[in-house]
C-alpha cells in the first residue's frame, strides 16, 4: 500500500509539474509596459515554490515507500537530528524566499499601483454598471463634464449622468462602449461604479482593479501592442455578471487621432 501511495503521489507530482513547465495553459502574451515585471515575478515564484512542491511531495512518497510496517520487529528510527535542525532549515529557507519575493514583488506592485501616472497621460473616465462598461473622453475642450447620478438614464444613453443643457464642458464629452487607446501612450483611467462592485480585468494588460461605488479609483498603464482584447468583470456584480465585458482597442497614434476626431465630429 505504501508503494502504491508513493507511485500515485509521484505520478501526480510529475504530471502536474510537467504541465506547468510545458506551459500547456499559460498566460496570454503580455501587451503592457509593466507586464514583463509581473511575468518575471510569477516565473520566479513558480520556480522556487515548484521546487518546494516537488521536494515535499517526493519526500512524502519516498518515506511512504520506505517505512511501511513489515512486521519484522524493526524499531522505529527518529528523524536524524530531531526537529530543531529541520525547523531552522525550513525557517531560513522559506524566510529567505519570502524576503526575496517581498523585496522584488513590492517594487513591481509599487511600479503599477503606487506611482502617479505620467502627467502626459490620456485621461479616460470609466463607468461600470450592471452589466457594461462605458468610457468617456473629455472631447476637444479637454475637460470632463460634471456627473449627476440622478440624471443617469439608460434609455437616453446618458450613462454618466451628464447635463449638457447647463454644463458646457459636458457637451463635447465622447462616450463609447469600447475603450480605444493609442499605442505606447500612458493611459490614466478613473474608475467609478454606478451601482455595485465591478472589476476591470484585461489579462493581456496584466491589470486588474475593482470598481467600488462611492469611490473614485485611478488606474494607469501603457499598451505596447496594437490589437483588440477583452475587458472582463471579475467582481461578482449580479445576474448578468458572466456577460459583463467590453473590448479594448489599441491603435497606432495616427489612427487613434483620426478615430477621436471622427467621434468628436459626431457629438
Amino acid at each position: 500500500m505504501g508503494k502504491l501511495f508513493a507511485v500515485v503521489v509521484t505520478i501526480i507530482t510529475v504530471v502536474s509539474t510537467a504541465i506547468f513547465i510545458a506551459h500547456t495553459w499559460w498566460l496570454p502574451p503580455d501587451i503592457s509596459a509593466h507586464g514583463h515585471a509581473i511575468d518575471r515575478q510569477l516565473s520566479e515564484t513558480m520556480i522556487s515554490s515548484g521546487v518546494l512542491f516537488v521536494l515535499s511531495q517526493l519526500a512524502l512518497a519516498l518515506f511512504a515507500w520506505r517505512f511501511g510496517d513489515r512486521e519484522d520487529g524493526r524499531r522505529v528510527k527518529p528523524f536524524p537530528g530531531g526537529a530543531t535542525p529541520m525547523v531552522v532549515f525550513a525557517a531560513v529557507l522559506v524566510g529567505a524566499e519570502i524576503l526575496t519575493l517581498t523585496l522584488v514583488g513590492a517594487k513591481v506592485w509599487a511600479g503599477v499601483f503606487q506611482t502617479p501616472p505620467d502627467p502626459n497621460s490620456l485621461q479616460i473616465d470609466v463607468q461600470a454598471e450592471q452589466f457594461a462598461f462605458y468610457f468617456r473622453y473629455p472631447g476637444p475642450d479637454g475637460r470632463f463634464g460634471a456627473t449627476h447620478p440622478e440624471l443617469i438614464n439608460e434609455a437616453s444613453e446618458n450613462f454618466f449622468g451628464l447635463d449638457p443643457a447647463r454644463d458646457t464642458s459636458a457637451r463635447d464629452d465622447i462616450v463609447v462602449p469600447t475603450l480605444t487607446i493609442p499605442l505606447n501612450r500612458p493611459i490614466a483611467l478613473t474608475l467609478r461604479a454606478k451601482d455595485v462592485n465591478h472589476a476591470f480585468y484585461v489579462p493581456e494588460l496584466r491589470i486588474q482593479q475593482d470598481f467600488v461605488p462611492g469611490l473614485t479609483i485611478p488606474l494607469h498603464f501603457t499598451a505596447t501592442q496594437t490589437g483588440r482584447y477583452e475587458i472582463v468583470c471579475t467582481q461578482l456584480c449580479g445576474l448578468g455578471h458572466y456577460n459583463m465585458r467590453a473590448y479594448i482597442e489599441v491603435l497606432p497614434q495616427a489612427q487613434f487621432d483620426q478615430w477621436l476626431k471622427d467621434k468628436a465630429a459626431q457629438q
Partner: protein
Amino acid sequence: MTHATVAGAHRHAPPQGFLRKHVFSLDHKVIGKQYLDLALVAVCTGMILSWLMRFHLAWPETPIPGLAKLSPNGAAGGVITPEYYLSLMTMHGTIMVFFVLTTAPFAGFGNYFLPIQVGAEDMAFPRINMMSFWVTLVAFLVLISAFVVGDGPPLSGWTAYAPLSAVGKDAGPGQGVGQTLWAVSITLFCVAQLLGALNFVTTTLDLRTKGMSLARMPYSTWAWFITSVIGLIAFAVLMPACILLILDRVAGTSFFIPAGLVISDRLQPHAGGSPLLWQHLFWFFGHPEVYIAILPGFGIISHILPVFARKPLLGPRVMIACLVAIAFLSYTVWGHHMFLSGMNPFSATLFSVPTLVITIPATIVTLLWIGTIYGARLRFTTPALFCLGFVSVFVSGGISGFFLAQPSIDTYLHGTYFVVGHFHFVMGVAAMFGIFAATYFWAPKMFGRMMNETLGKWHFWLTFIGVYCVFMPMHYLGLAGNVRRYSAFTDDYLKPLIPLHRFITVAALFTGAAQLIFLFNLIRSRFRGPQAPDNPWEATSLEWSTTSPPPFDNFGGRPPVVERGPNEYGIGSGARGVDYGMQAAAARVSAR
C-alpha cells in the same frame, strides 16, 4: 481535580426518555454526533449544488433532468439561468464554509472528543452546548429555506459584498428575501459558534482530569482549543457586521451603501455608507475562518499520524508553537483578500508580508508530519492513508498561496480559477481529508463498530486521484486568465478552455460518486459493522481508555488519572509486543 467528579456525580444522571437521550440531549457525545449528522446533510447538499454548477459549466445548453421541477424559475426546462447559477454558487460556498468545514471538524469531532481527551465527563456548560447545536440547526434551516421562500437564494457569493448584498430586491432575484435569510442565518450561526467556542475554551482550561497538564494534551485537543480561541474573536466580529447588513437591508440605514447608486434604474435611497467597511469586517472574520476550517485538521492529522506511524510526532512543542503562531498571524492578513479592492495600495504591501510569513509555520508543520513518517512503521489503514493524503493536498494547496500572497502576482490571478483551485485544495479538500481521517479513525469509538477497510481504501484512492483531477487543472485555468463566478464562457478568449472545464466536470462527477462508497460504508457500519474493541488502533489518548462507545459520563464515574503525554509510541523492544504507553490506565467501565 475534584470538581468534575464531585459536582458531576449528581449533576449528571443519565437521562431517561427518547427525547432527552437523543434529541434534546445535554451529552456532548450526542451533540457532537448531531453536529456531524448536520454536516453530513449539509455536505451532501453542497456537493449536489457543485455538481449542478459543474455540469452547467461544461454543457451549458443541456437540460438537467428533474431540475425544472425543483426550481421552475431558476432552471426553466432544466437549464440553469445565469442568476440561478450564482445562487447555487452562493449557497454552495455558504453551506460548505459554515455548515460543513466549521461544524464537522471543529464543532462535531471537537464536541465529541475534546471532553473525553481531557478526561472530563462533559463540557463545562452542557445546556449552552445544546443551545449551540440547536441554534446552528435553525441557522441551517433558515439558510436552506431561501431555496423555497421568495425569489430564490441570494446570488452575491458567500462573501456577500455590499452594496450588491445590501440594497435588496433591485439587485436581482434572491437579493430580496433570500439575502435577508442569508444574513439572519449567518448571524445565528455566529451566535451558535460563540456559545460552542465558549464551552471548548472553558472545558479545556478548567475540566482537565488529574495529571492532564497542558503539555500532555493531545494535539487534536490543542487544535480545537486554539481554533475556539480564533472563533471567539472571528465570529464576534462577523456577528455585528451581519447585524449592520440586515439593518441596511430592512431598516433603511446606510452602513455599507454609498450615495448615488442607480440600480435597476432606481436611485437608491441610501447615502454615505462604505462598501469597503463590509469587506474589512468580513475578511477580518473571513481569513481566520480559513484556519477555523483547517486547524482542527492539523490537530487531527498530528493526533492520528503517530498512531499509524507507531512513532511519536516529530517536534511536539514546535507543532503547538506553530499552531499558536498561525492563529495569531491569521488576524493580521485579512487585507490580502482586498489587494485590488480599491484600498490604499500601500497597505497591500503591509498585508502581504504577514501573509507570506504565515507560510513559515505552515511549512514547518508540514515538514514535521513528513519527518514523523521517516523511520516509521507505517500501518496503511484507511485513516492513515487519509493522513498521508492530507499532507499531499495541503502541500499542493499551500504552495499556490505563495503566488496569491504577492500583490503584484495577485494583480493577474485575483478573480481567476487559480484562487478557486487554491482555496479548494487548502481549506476544502485538505479539511475534508482531515474529516475523513477522523471519521475512519474515531467511528469505532463513536459507534462501537468498525468501518469496512476495503471500502475505505477504495474511497481513499478514488477521492485522492479525483481531487487532483478536479482542482489541479483549475490552476492552469487561472494562469490562462479564466475568471471565476461565471456561469458560462462566452468570452472569446475563454472558449478554448471549455474542454478543460469538461475534464474537470467529469472528474468532479466521478469524485462525487466515490463519496457514495463512503456514505454506504458509514451507514452500514453504524449498524452492521463488526464490534469494535476498546482500542482497535493501539492508540494512547484517553478516548481509547474507555469503552467503545463510551458510557454516558465517559469514564463510568472513575475519571482517569493521566500519567504521561500522548506521544508515547515506538517504545519498547520493537518486537511484536506492546510498543506504546497509554496516557492513563484503562478505566473499568462496567455498564456498556
